[in-house]
């Protein structure tokens, strides 16, 4: 049995079904991506 978080979250212990394998893209290696450029703020 795993430890439970001390503070409950909304929908605690509710798990979404996994994505179908055919819809799951390969993960990107984080070391290969450029830095995030930030956010524009309000338009």
């Amino acid at each position, binding site marked *: 049995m795993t430890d439970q*978080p001390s503070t409950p*979250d*909304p*929908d605690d212990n509710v798990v*979404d079904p996994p994505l179908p394998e055919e819809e799951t893209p390969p*993960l990107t290696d984080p070391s290969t*991506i*450029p830095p995030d450029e930030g956010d*524009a703020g309000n338009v």
Partner: protein
Amino acid sequence: MSRASGLDPVHSSIARQRFTQAALLGLHHAAEVHYTQDSRRWEGIAQKLLASKGEFPKHADCSGYMSWALWFALLPFKLGDIVNGQHWQGGYTGTMAQHGIEVLHPPNTRRGDLVLYGSGPTFEHVAGVVTHDKSGKPLVVSHGSEAGPFFLPFDYRPWAQIRRYI
């Protein structure tokens, strides 16, 4: 605890599926989704692009892309702008941080939850949870540069806060 959106379990499940559909659609067309911080960042919502019809924004920044995915997710339910509180006319990480409810523990994330990065209260980047790996770690779609969107572990960089809107 009640849901951020007030939707019942069936409708919230539909909304989460719609969010995932939208977020993955741009990911699968990454070469066509350009990164911009100019007014085109909001074109997904401004042009009412429907992921269900294969439509996605060709221009967005991180918050524009995630706002569009949540707008599409919530569209059938006519809840108004519960993500940025700006009638779907605009928004950014700072307005996202002022809405929804916080999820404290990453394993409890669900599809459609947003991960905020950088320093509060306005933060500087956002990505959206679309699934989890076998260990329960959230996996996100992130559009933070011209090369994106990318599919990444949620902790690919230090994260600050997770928020739920659905």
